[in-house]
């Protein structure tokens, strides 16, 4: 425990409000009458259904298979009958619907036959990754990036440190805390498997010091395990210390390069809950079909943590937590800093649902009046990315997106610290999301326009060419056959050259500050940006008119 810590810049001390949900023991939510299992609960391509309406399925049975590399399968979280495969609203900031498999459960909760591997060490890393992929495991900390990809160090890097994120820095959320208290052994066994898959030299488990029970539980379990390379590190409670880049900084003192990935500096970071599901997948053969969800807030009659079958409608969970308190509340998925509001309780829980916050006026008091920015610099003081949020705000608001990028808009992790402290009550993060969304959209349009222009150019070129050839053919009909062949050949050569030029142009294209090599968080941002744009829910223009009236 004498690990050297390195504070990250900025950040906030927030009222934790975790006791609300940790005062009650972890319970298991009942099997709901229907399960709604979206085909895309992860970053990447949606899975492709393997079952049909009317099929009987068993608990743990694969329902849809991944499509492409960045994708993940989904499984039935209880036994029953597939009654629909259709678009259903899913919990997503955009509020959009997505293809889902709906199961009517039979109440038997009967498992499909499944077998674990008693000796993970005898499996080589790629076999492990396949098991983890087939189990549908994605990052459970919120991002939902397929975990097997992040367990692949590739040829390029040696992995020095595997970091398990047990910081859980966001107020109200306590699902990881509860998991560590109750299943510390699973977290550690998962860590051991992950370390093996990555050949990582050491594993650090970072837990905020506001979770003494979790720290004690993990430490105790660690003594039984006798693994010298795994270490529990108590870190100061400070939001957003659970952000990947912030946690890495705190534990190792290293900064993940902007636009880079942790793996570039020899580090891989996973959530503690992901580690526990890796253990269950490898040693018990269980796919990811359940997770712990915190149901909390002053709108809930009995706030607590529940083990939930993925696909359980939120309404059933709220009932399990004693129903609502008859106080008006806003339903938020995630925490009060980064969570988003949901507009229906019919939505299902997914692999990335960590918390349902029934936020009353007590939890999220209404905002004071919006004033113009007074340049107080508070936002910059708390920004963990060391940005100048007030400048980003000016440029985003003026739709001067180039300037916003000059001020490193894409380094913003949308943690909300700036908005939290802004005395003028400006909806800063909302502007950044808006700007990011617009920039991605412009980029996409520009690419589409480029393609169209190229198609057009090539067509013009062909028409010209054909005209000339026709003329030539008229002149020397006799040699036509030979000449046509030559022309074809020439055309092929030119076409190839054009293709090459196009490829080169595309490669040299100025991306919105580099779209390759995106981190998980960035990918999530893009994805969210895309859907937000589709749904047009996040345009702060209305607020803009409110300011500075």
């Amino acid at each position, binding site marked *: 425990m004498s690990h050297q810590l390195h504070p990250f810049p900025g950040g906030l001390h927030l009222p934790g409000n975790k006791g609300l949900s940790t005062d009650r023991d972890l319970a298991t939510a009942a099997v709901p009458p229907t399960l709604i299992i979206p085909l895309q609960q992860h970053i990447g391509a949606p899975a492709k259904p393997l079952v049909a309406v009317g099929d009987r399925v068993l608990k743990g049975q694969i329902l849809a298979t991944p499509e492409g590399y960045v994708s993940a399968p989904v499984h039935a979280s209880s036994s029953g009958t597939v009654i629909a495969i259709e678009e259903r609203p899913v919990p997503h900031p955009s509020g959009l619907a997505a293809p889902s498999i709906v199961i009517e459960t039979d109440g038997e909760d009967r498992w499909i036959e499944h077998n674990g591997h008693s000796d993970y060490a005898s499996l080589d890393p790629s076999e492990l990754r396949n098991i983890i992929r087939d189990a549908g495991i994605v990052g459970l900390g919120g991002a939902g990036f397929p975990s097997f990809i992040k367990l692949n160090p590739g040829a390029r890097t040696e992995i020095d440190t595997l970091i398990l994120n047990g910081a859980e820095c966001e107020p109200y959320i306590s699902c990881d805390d509860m998991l560590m208290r109750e299943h510390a052994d699973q977290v550690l066994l998962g860590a051991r498997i992950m370390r093996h898959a990555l050949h990582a030299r050491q594993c650090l488990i970072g837990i905020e010091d506001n979770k003494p029970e979790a720290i004690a539980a993990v430490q105790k379990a660690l003594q039984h395990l006798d693994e010298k390379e795994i270490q529990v590190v108590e870190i100061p409670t400070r939001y957003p210390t659970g952000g990947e880049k912030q946690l890495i900084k705190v534990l190792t003192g290293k900064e993940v390069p902007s636009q880079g990935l942790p793996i570039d500096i020899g580090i891989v970071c996973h959530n503690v809950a992901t580690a526990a599901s890796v253990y269950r997948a490898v040693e018990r053969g269980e796919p990811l079909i359940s997770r712990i969800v915190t149901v909390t807030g002053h709108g809930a009659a009995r706030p607590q943590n529940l083990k939930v079958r993925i696909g359980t409608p939120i309404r059933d969970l709220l009932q399990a937590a004693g129903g609502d308190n008859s106080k*008006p*509340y806003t339903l938020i998925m995630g925490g009060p800093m980064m969570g988003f*509001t949901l507009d229906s309780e019919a939505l299902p829980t997914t692999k990335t649902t960590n918390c349902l916050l029934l936020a009353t006026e007590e939890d999220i008091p209404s905002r004071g009046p919006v004033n113009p920015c007074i340049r107080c610099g508070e936002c910059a003081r708390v920004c963990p990315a060391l940005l100048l949020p007030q400048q980003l705000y000016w440029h985003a608001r003026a739709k001067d997106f180039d300037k916003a990028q000059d001020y490193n808009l894409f380094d913003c992790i949308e943690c909300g610290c700036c908005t939290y402290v*802004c005395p003028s009550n400006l909806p800063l993060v909302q502007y950044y999301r808006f700007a990011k969304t617009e920039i991605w959209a412009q980029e996409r349009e520009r690419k589409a326009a480029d393609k169209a222009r190229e198609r057009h150019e090539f067509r013009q070129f062909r028409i010209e060419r054909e005209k000339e050839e026709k003329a030539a053919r008229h002149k020397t009909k006799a040699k036509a056959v030979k000449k046509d062949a030559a022309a074809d050949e020439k055309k092929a050569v030119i076409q190839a050259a054009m293709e090459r030029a196009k490829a080169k142009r595309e490669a040299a294209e100025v991306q919105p500050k580099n779209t390759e090599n995106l981190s998980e968080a960035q990918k999530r941002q893009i994805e969210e940006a895309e859907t937000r744009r589709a749904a047009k829910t996040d345009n702060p223009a209305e607020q803009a008119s409110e300011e*500075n009236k």
Partner: protein
Amino acid sequence: MSMLKASSPHIHGPAAVNAVMLEVSLALLPALAAYTWLFGWGVIFNVLLAIATALLSEAAVLRMRGREVAATLGDGSALLTALLLAIALPPLAPWWLIVVGTAFAIIFAKQLYGGLGFNPFNPAMVGYVVLLISFPLEMTSWLAPLDVREHTLDLSATAAYVFGGQLPLQGGIDSLTMATPLDTVKTRLGLEHTMGEILRDPVLGILGGRGWEIVNAMVLLGGLWMLFRRLITWHVPVAMLGTLFVTSGLFHLIDPEHYSGPLFHIASGGALLGAFFIATDPVSGATSTRGRIIFGIGVGLFTFIIRAWGGYPDGVAFSILLMNMAAPTIDYYTRPRVFGHTGGH
């Protein structure tokens, strides 16, 4: 459940612009009270006239610009500007001086730039400097502290002067006023008096001017309270006062007969008011930590230069306006290194 769509973060810290402005205004109260106690009823008239003018002129402009009046007045910034002006102006002044200065500050220095947040200069300082340049006579007739004065003025006599320009006294206003300490030092140094002689002048007290040093002690108290309440950060006051102290101290060491001591500099004139209440104005100052230190150093340096060699006895207002002009540039060059970037930007 409610169907309210809101964007994260859903919670907000306790900070609010109007609360900040009100607290800063509160922090000025001890100094205003001391000012009134030591210099008489005129200060009360100053305060009331300035507040009324600030609110009315802001409301008038807002109405003309078609903006919401009540909400903006509620942000408390006009009130603060009024109080700052009231404490910076002479304690017995004709009503129109206060009205012109305050109206100019609010209308020209603030609202014409777009209102709170958009003004490049501190409005109170603009108002002050405009008055200083336009009405040098009125701006330099400072009432002597009550205990060195021959006459006292009661409420009705003060009102008669403020609104009617008449004093029911023999000798008129001149029998009540005297040069301020900084004025005295400046003028008498110009007359080749030595600091030793000057310091025996009745206008001078222990550290600064008699009476003034008490007002300034109250300003310091308010400033420390603001630091404690985290309404301001230490960077600007420390950088400014430190620079003033070091530069004046240096010259005083070299030539004590011609340069007043560093404590006198800090305890006199607007040094403390400027350091804690005006140079810390976020809107017209630098925003980054490094930027604020540079800003404070600049204000301190210019203040000393103007006081020592310039044409005006005090230089705080000019120095702050000068540095206001430099603030955007300072901000540009003190941009922090972004997390995960190596050096530069």
